[in-house]
C-alpha cells in the first residue's frame, strides 16, 4: 500500500505544481473551461464543435484583446463523452480563478452536473441540448438551455410535417417512427411527441438504437416492417451516418427522414454523400463561411496559422454552433460587466445575471458579425431559452441548404409540460422554487 500513498503524494505535488503558476497568471483573467471530446465514438461530431469554441476565443483575443480589456484564458479537458471523465474535468476546472461557466457538450454529463452546479453556483450553458424541463429558470437557476430544447425541436418537426401535409389535422392516421439513441439524449423528445400524437391522432412508434449506434439492423428491420410515413432521427455521432446508410440499404426514402439538429451536420452525411441526398434535419444555424464572424476567425486566427482544426471545416454546422455558444458566453460576461463593473473579472454568479439578461437584437447581432447566423434572442429570469426558433435544412449531396422558413415552438403545448416536469423534478429532489426577488441579485 506504500505505492498508494506515494501516488497520493505525487498527485498532491503534481496538482500543486500544475495550479500554482496558473493561479498567479490567471488572477485577472476570465477563464473559460472547455469540456470537449476528440476521442471515442462521438469524436467526429465533438471535434468541430470544440474547434469552433476555441477559435472564437482565439479570434476575440486577437481582434479585441478580450472583453472590455479583461483577458480571456481557456483550457480544454477531454471527456471522451464519458460521464465520469466529464465530472472529473468539471471538478478540475471549476475552482480556477475567473471561471465563467461550463458547456458540458453532452446530455449525460449535463444530467450529472446539474446538481453539482446548483451546489457550486456555476452556470451551465446547454445550447440546444440537456434537460428539456430546465427551460424553467425558476426551477433550474443555473441551467441555460439557450435557443431551444429537445422538446422545442420535436415540436418544430411536427409543425413542419403538418405544414407539408397541409394542416396539422391531416396528420391523423399517419405513422411516424422515432429512431433514437437509447440514452437520456434520445429519450428526451418522447413525452412531447406523445403529447402531439394524442392531439393530432398520428401513430408514434419508438425504435431505440443501442449506444453508440453502429448496430442498427434490427431498428431498420422494424422500419421496413412498419413502413412509417416519416422517420425522426434522434442520433449523435456515428449513429447518424450509420442510420443513413441503413436507410439506403432498406430503401427507405431519405426525403422522409428528419433529424434533430444534432443529426444534421457535415460529419453525419459526408461519408454517405449522394446516398443521403434529400435527408432533412433541424437547423439552428447555417453552414457557411459567409458570415462576418467566420470571416474574422479566418482572418485573425486561421490565416495566421493558429487555427484549431482544418481550415476548410471552418463555418461548418457544428463548428458554427460552437462559435455561437462561445459568443453567448462572452455576451453574458459583457452584459454582467455592464452592471457589475467594466474591465472586471466576473464571478459565476455575475455571469448568471448576464445570462438571464441577454438582449441580442438584430442590431447587436449584426455588430457581432452574426448576421444570418441566428435570430435575435432575449432571456429573463424565468425564461432560460431566449428563443425557440429553428429551420429545416436539406442535404443536396454536397452541402446543406435551407428548405423551410423559421418555425417557433408552440408555447401553448410546451409551457404546461415544462412546468409539470419541473415541479416533479423539484418534488423528487426536495428542492424549492427560486424566489422572484432573487432575480436581480448576483447570487
Amino acid at each position: 500500500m506504500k505505492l498508494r500513498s506515494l501516488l497520493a503524494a505525487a498527485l498532491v505535488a503534481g496538482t500543486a505544481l500544475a495550479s500554482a503558476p496558473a493561479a498567479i497568471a490567471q488572477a485577472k483573467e476570465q477563464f473559460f473551461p472547455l469540456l470537449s471530446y476528440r476521442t471515442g465514438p462521438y469524436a467526429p461530431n465533438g471535434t468541430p464543435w470544440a474547434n469552433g469554441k476555441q477559435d472564437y476565443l482565439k479570434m476575440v483575443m486577437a481582434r479585441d484583446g478580450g472583453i472590455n480589456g479583461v483577458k480571456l484564458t481557456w483550457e480544454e479537458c477531454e471527456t471522451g463523452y464519458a460521464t465520469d471523465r466529464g465530472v472529473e474535468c468539471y471538478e478540475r476546472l471549476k475552482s480556477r480563478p475567473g471561471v465563467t461557466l461550463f458547456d458540458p457538450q453532452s446530455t449525460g454529463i449535463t444530467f450529472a452536473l446539474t446538481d453539482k452546479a446548483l451546489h457550486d453556483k456555476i452556470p451551465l450553458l446547454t445550447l440546444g441540448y440537456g434537460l428539456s424541463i430546465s427551460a424553467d429558470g425558476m426551477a433550474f437557476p443555473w441551467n441555460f438551455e439557450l435557443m431551444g430544447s429537445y422538446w422545442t425541436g420535436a415540436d418544430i418537426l411536427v409543425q413542419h410535417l403538418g405544414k407539408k401535409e397541409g394542416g396539422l389535422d391531416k396528420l391523423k392516421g399517419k405513422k411516424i417512427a422515432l429512431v433514437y439513441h437509447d440514452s437520456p439524449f434520445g429519450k428526451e423528445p418522447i413525452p412531447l411527441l406523445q403529447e402531439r400524437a394524442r392531439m393530432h391522432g398520428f401513430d408514434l412508434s419508438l425504435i431505440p438504437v443501442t449506444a453508440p449506434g453502429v448496430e442498427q439492423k434490427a431498428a431498420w428491420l422494424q422500419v421496413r416492417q412498419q413502413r412509417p410515413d416519416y422517420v425522426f432521427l434522434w442520433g449523435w455521432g456515428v449513429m447518424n451516418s450509420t442510420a443513413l446508410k441503413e436507410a439506403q440499404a432498406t430503401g427507405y426514402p431519405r426525403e422522409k427522414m428528419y433529424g434533430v439538429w444534432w443529426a444534421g451536420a457535415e460529419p453525419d452525411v459526408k461519408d454517405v454523400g449522394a446516398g443521403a441526398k434529400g435527408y432533412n434535419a433541424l437547423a439552428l444555424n447555417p453552414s457557411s463561411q459567409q458570415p462576418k464572424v467566420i470571416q474574422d476567425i479566418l482572418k485573425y486566427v486561421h490565416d495566421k496559422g493558429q487555427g484549431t482544426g482544418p481550415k476548410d471545416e471552418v463555418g461548418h454546422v457544428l463548428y458554427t454552433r460552437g462559435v455561437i455558444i462561445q459568443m453567448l458566453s462572452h455576451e453574458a460576461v459583457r452584459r454582467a460587466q455592464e452592471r457589475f463593473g467594466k474591465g472586471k473579472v466576473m464571478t459565476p454568479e455575475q455571469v448568471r445575471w448576464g445570462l438571464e439578461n441577454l438582449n441580442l437584437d438584430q442590431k447587436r447581432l449584426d455588430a457581432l458579425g452574426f448576421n444570418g447566423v441566428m435570430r435575435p434572442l432575449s432571456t429573463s429570469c424565468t425564461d432560460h431559452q431566449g428563443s425557440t426558433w429553428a429551420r429545416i435544412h436539406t442535404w443536396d449531396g454536397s452541402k446543406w441548404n435551407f428548405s423551410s422558413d423559421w418555425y417557433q415552438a408552440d408555447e401553448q403545448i410546451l409551457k404546461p409540460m415544462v412546468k409539470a416536469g419541473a415541479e416533479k423534478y423539484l418534488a423528487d429532489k426536495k428542492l424549492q422554487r427560486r424566489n422572484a426577488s432573487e432575480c436581480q441579485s448576483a447570487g
Partner: protein
Amino acid sequence: MLYRENGQFKTSYRADQQIFPIQQDRIFIGLLLAVAFVVVPGLASDYLFRAILIPFLIMALAALGVNILVGYCGQISLGSGAFMAVGAYGAYNFFVRIPGMPLVPAILLGGLCATAFGILFGLPSLRVKGLYLAVATLAAQFFSDWMFLRVKWLLNDSPSGSVGVTNLQVLGWPIDSAASRYWFCLVFLVVMALLAKNLVRSAIGREWMAIRDMDVAAAVIGIRPMYAKLSAFAVSSFVVGVAGALWAFVYLGTWEPAAFSVDLSFRLLFMVIIGGLGSIMGAFFGAAFIVVLPIVLNQVLPLLASLVGVEFSTTAVSHAELMIFGALIVWFLAVEPHGLARLWSTGKQKLRLWPFPH
C-alpha cells in the same frame, strides 16, 4: 532490515493467525489508516477529493468484489458492471420509494439486490467455466443494460431514463461536503476490506481457492462446487453492488445506464488482473492504476511538454494518454504477470535482507 522478523515469536495460534503477522506491517497499516482518516482530509483539495480520491475508493471497493470472484474463486466474470448497476438502481428504488429510508440500509439493500442478481447469473458457472463463463456473464451485462433502459418502473418513471438522489445523510449528519463523502466511502471500504480479508482466510475462502486451482480435485476432497461457486458469486456481487450504489449516490449523484456499461466491466477486470489476482491489496493497486493514472497522465503530459517548450493539443494529449496507458499495461504484465501486488510482495521480500542480500 526493514522487515526483519528476528525476535518476533508467535507463541499462540491466535498470534500465528492474525491478519498481519509481522509487526512492521501492523504499524504500517495503522499509520496508513491514520493518514487516510485524519491527515488526508486535512490536506486534500476539493478537486483531489471529488475527482480522484472518491472514485479511487469506490473503484477499489468494486475491484475487491471482483477479485473475490475472479481472483479467489477463478470464475471469470464480465458482468461486474451489471452487478454495480443492480446495486445502484436497487438502492435508488429503496431510497426513493420507502419514505424515511436511511441511506446506509438503502445502500446495503442495494447490495443484497446485486447478490440475488449475482447468484442468478452465477448459475451457469455450475456448468461452464473459464472463457465460456466469461461470455455467459456478459449476458448479465446486456440484460442489465436492457432492463435499466426499458423497465420504467425501476427508474421511478423518469421520462429520460436518468435518475438522481439528493439530501444524503447519516443519522442527521449530511453527506454533502467533499470530506464527508470521502469518509463515508472510506468507512465502507475499510470495513468491507477487513471482512473480505478475513473471509478469504477462512474455510470458505479456502474452498474458493481449491475450486479455482482444480475443481475436480476440490470436489473429490469433499468441497461442494455448487455451494462454493454460488457463495463466491453472492459475496462478490454484494461488494460490487455496494460499490455501484456508492458510485451512483456519492460520486455521480445523477446517472444513466451508460454509467454502468460493458466498458466498466472490462475496466474492473483489468483492475483485478493488473492489481493482482487473488490478493486483497491488488484491488487497491489496480484501482489506483486504472482510475488515477489516466487522469495524472492527462494533467502531467502537457506540463512536461511545456517544460521543454512544446505545446500539446488536447487531441494529442488524449491520444498520448491512451498510448502510454496501454504501453504501461503491457509492460507491467510482461514484467510481472501476477500484477502489482506481487511486485509489492517481492519488494517486501527483498527488504527483509536489505541492504545485504545473499
